[in-house]
């Protein structure tokens, strides 16, 4: 196990920061390239600089010095960068989630945090908690169920337009600028993990003009799919997913398979992924389907023996 990453999460953070800086620099460079030409012409006329001067790499490889007053943010460009890095992911990582069913008490804080972050309606679940009963003899238990982020995802195979895609670092994302709303992915997913925007999204008004971030899938769009994204936007910031951080009961572990390390969202304790799975007999949902999920479950010890009634038609919110 790599000690430095375990003991010092800042390290990871820093390398991510650096990556973001790099992306920013390239993006900025592209803007500045155009701006520089414009600025150069303009400065000829009135040789007065306004603010600080910034050294930037132009698109043709030249280092140029530009007055910061001339640098503008182009929304189109920012969106393009968001798409680019959203599809590329975070190289060198393989994200995994472990859900400890012995800890879940159906607090549903994970759901609240998730729905708030992704601007979802109450019946739209990126993650849902299900009341499971495996056989008539066994007791019931609560099972949080996010997208399983399969390594062999049936939903991605069937998508006709590459709107839903598998990232090298694990998550299966959906690009709602691309989605045509055919819902073949819903039909193909054995985990019922996918949700559709049947009407105008909940925050359609409020999100007007917000730049689309494919890692957050906000703004939501009418007529397109939405789904759990492993909180890819948070991963980019070096943070744990929304649901993982929100859980009060220590249900979730999240981490990087490449580092063989997972961190508990509640206790912030970090431990070995392989050992956690081995000691607790971790398993996957329906592995026989060959989907190779990236979400693991630890068996439901300490089951709650009685459930409240009226579950079937219950609708939270």
């Amino acid at each position: 196990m790599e000690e430095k990453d375990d003991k010092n999460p800042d390290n990871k953070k820093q390398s991510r920061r650096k990556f973001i800086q790099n992306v920013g620099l390239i993006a900025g460079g592209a803007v500045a390239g155009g701006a520089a030409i414009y600025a150069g012409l303009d400065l000829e006329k009135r040789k007065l600089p306004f603010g600080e001067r910034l050294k930037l790499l132009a698109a043709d490889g030249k280092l140029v010095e530009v007055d910061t007053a001339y640098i503008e943010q182009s929304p189109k460009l920012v969106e393009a960068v968001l798409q680019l890095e959203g599809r590329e992911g975070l190289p060198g990582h393989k994200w995994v989630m472990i859900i400890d069913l012995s800890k879940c008490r159906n607090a549903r804080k994970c759901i609240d945090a998730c729905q708030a972050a992704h601007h979802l309606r109450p019946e739209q679940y990126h993650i849902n908690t299900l009341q499971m009963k495996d056989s008539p003899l066994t007791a019931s238990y609560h099972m949080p169920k996010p997208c399983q982020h399969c390594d062999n995802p049936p939903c991605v195979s069937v998508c006709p337009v590459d709107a839903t895609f598998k990232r090298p670092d694990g998550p299966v994302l959906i690009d709602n600028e691309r989605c045509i709303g055919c819902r073949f992915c819903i039909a193909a997913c054995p985990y019922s993990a996918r949700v559709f925007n049947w009407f105008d999204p909940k925050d359609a008004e409020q999100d007007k003009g917000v730049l689309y971030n494919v890692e957050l899938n906000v703004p939501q769009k009418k007529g397109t799919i939405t789904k759990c994204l492993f909180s890819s936007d948070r991963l980019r910031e070096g943070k744990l997913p929304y649901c993982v951080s929100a859980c009060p009961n220590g249900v979730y572990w999240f981490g990087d398979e490449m580092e063989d390390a997972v961190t508990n969202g509640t206790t912030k304790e970090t431990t070995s992924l392989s050992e956690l799975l081995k000691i607790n007999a971790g398993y996957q949902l329906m592995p026989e389907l060959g989907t190779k999920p990236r979400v693991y479950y630890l068996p439901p010890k300490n089951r709650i023996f009685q459930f409240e009634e009226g579950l079937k038609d219950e609708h939270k919110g």
Partner: protein
Amino acid sequence: MEDNFHKIESDLFRTVRLNRAHILWMGLLSVALAVCLYAYSLQLRTGLGVAGIRDYVSWGMYISNFVFFVASSLIGMLLSAVLGLLGIKWIRPLTRIAEIIALAFAAVAGLVIISDMGRPERLAYVFIYGRFQSPILWDVTVVTVYVLISALLLYLPLIPDLAMGTRVIEKPKWLRKVYSILSVNWKGTPEQFRIMHSSIRVLLVLIIPVAMAIHTVTSWLFAVTPRPGWNSTIFGPYFVSGAFVAGIASVVIAMYFFRKNYRLEKYITPDHFDKMGKLLVLVSLVYLYFNINEFIVPGYKLERSESIHLSELFTGRFAGLFWFAQFFGLIIPIVLLLFKKMRRPLPMLTIAILLFFASWIKRFIIVVPTQENPFLPMQHVPSNFLVYKPTLIETAITLASFILVLLIITGLSKLFPVIPVWEMKEEAEENQLK
């Protein structure tokens, strides 16, 4: 002989004219279509949520209807290509009807699938960003090819009739103009006939694999998923054999009304109904065979998720629809049509209409129940997520597709003779020689 030819010409071109009854019928259809299109405008504005489909059952009436339309369109291939290439003569006066039906259903199937899209304005993305591993892409490709070949198979054998029509049709003038443009300077020389016959032959051979492909690929939209009820290796042939049953229903209904309304009793005879009845028994038996395989084999094993699905069909929420579809879509046609009396025009029409409905419901039964029984429980959702109930708007949009098919069929059958005139003349000549 000349008299006989003249009689055939005037009989078959008599249907090509616009009378008041026909204009009224088309007007009625157009008004109904307009109402249904209003329903679609509501869907565009509000979202797909105006339909009863939700996150669990996300494919409902639209997709069932799409499958039904693709199925019905296969009849063109069966009658013109399979029977035509086998040299079966009695089919001749029915080939154009079959091709018109095939073309209408296949073309409108494309529209039906658009009505199911959450973002129809992004249709072009399928071509711009198309990914080859998605069965949707295969479906789009083969359906387009099938529409093109069917259009050609309708058009090429029409050319000699078009040339004939420029002589026969007096008014309206514009129609004569259309005929003369479309007849591409057909003189009826042996060379022209040779070219026409060989190109039709090529198309007839081509359309067989393409038609098999469209319905096989349509079945794969379901069969490539791991879900109980869809996870089947025989879905391709199961769909194709079912398609012939559904298609014959449409052709029989069309035959009956063309015969009555266009006074074609001499050309579409009780004998044709009799033969179509026998053909229907044959294809139904093939379909029955696949049904037995599709239900008995998983029913014997009763693997857990399959057993839930099967009990929903046999005795559960879908039992009524399921048994209706199996009874009127399979058992009744097979049993009744063994009797000669039942193969007369009127009983045939009755059976065909029941069969038509049963075939549509059969597609519904294939598409919907599987989705109501997912692997994981459906919880914490509004009750309308748990069971699928089609809405009025969705029904109206579905009706629109049927109205459109009717409009295309009646339109084409009024613009052109529904029975190939030159082939009837050829037949008369052959009979004369005997």
